[in-house]
C-alpha cells in the first residue's frame, strides 16, 4: 500500500462526489468500506460525523475533501484533528460559498499571526 499511495476520501454533495469519482478516486469492494459519502437532505449529522471519524482513523487515507457547510457540522472533530495526515480540505458547495473565517487551518494561522 505504501508504494501505491493513499486514498482520497470525499464527503460532499452528490454532484461533487460523482465528479471526483469520475476523476478516479473511488474505492469500493466487498471487504472495505467506501472512501466516499454522498450527503443528501436526509443524511443525519451522526452519519456524517461517524464517516468523518472513520476516515480520520484509517491509515490508508491521505486527503479528505469536505464541503465547508458539512465541515461546520463536525467542526469539533475537525478542530481536534491535529495530525498532518489525513489532510482535510474544506471546499465550498453550490449553495454555500467559501468563508475563510470558518476554515480551521486559516483560523489557527490567524491566531498565531
Amino acid at each position, binding site marked *: 500500500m505504501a*508504494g*501505491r*499511495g*493513499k*486514498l*482520497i476520501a470525499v464527503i460532499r454533495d*452528490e*454532484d*461533487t*462526489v*460523482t*465528479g*471526483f*469519482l*469520475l*476523476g*478516479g*478516486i*473511488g*474505492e*469500493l*469492494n466487498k471487504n472495505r468500506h*467506501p*472512501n466516499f459519502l*454522498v450527503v443528501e437532505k436526509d443524511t443525519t449529522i451522526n452519519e456524517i460525523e461517524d464517516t468523518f471519524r472513520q476516515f480520520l482513523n484509517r491509515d490508508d487515507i*491521505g*486527503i479528505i*475533501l469536505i464541503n465547508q457547510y458539512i465541515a461546520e457540522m463536525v467542526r469539533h472533530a475537525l478542530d481536534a484533528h491535529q495530525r*498532518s*495526515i489525513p*489532510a482535510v*480540505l474544506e*471546499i*465550498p458547495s*453550490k449553495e454555500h460559498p*467559501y468563508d*475563510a473565517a470558518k476554515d480551521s*487551518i*486559516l483560523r*489557527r*494561522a490567524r491566531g*498565531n*499571526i
Partner: protein
Amino acid sequence: MASRDLRAEVDFVLLQLLGDLEQLEAKRQALNARVEEGWLSLSKARYAMGAKSVGPLQYASHMEPQVRVGTSESQDGLQKFWMVRAGTQTPEEVGSREAAFLSSALRRRKGLPRTPEPDSSPAPQNPLKWFGILVPHSLRQAQASFREGLQLAADMASLQSRITWGQSQLQELQEKLKQLEPRAP
C-alpha cells in the same frame, strides 16, 4: 545580538507563512473554478443523457482507484503530497507479478494440472464506462475538470502542511524570544 538574529528568523518564518497562505488561497480559487466547471459539464451531460443518468445509480459495485495520493515526511516533520496515477507500479510490485506470471506459464507448458493463478488485480476501470459505451463530450470534460481539481487538492494539502509547520516554528521562535527579552513589569 542573539535576539536580533532571532527577530530576523521570526520575520523570515512569518513572511514565508504569509506567502504560503497567499498561495493556498490562489490554489483554492483555482480548485473552486475547476469544480464549478465540472458541475456545469455534469449538468450538460445530464441534459444530454437524462436527469437520472448521471448520479449514484450509475456507480459501479466494485471500484478500484485510478488516482491515489503519494505522501512523504521530511526529517523536520513536513508532509508533502502528490498525485499517483494507476499503472505507475513500484519495482517490487512489478517483480512479484512477473514471477507469478512466469510460474503459471511454466506449469501449463509442463502439462501439470492448472493451479489457480495468483489474484492479479485488473487495471482500474475508467469510471466513464459506468455511464455507457458512448458518453457525451460534456461528461469527459467533467472528468478532466475534476482530475485537474485533484492535482490542485494535492498542492493545497502540501501547502496546509507547510502552514501548520510554519506556525509551530513561529511559536517556538516567539517563545525563545520571550525568554531572551522578558517584558519589564
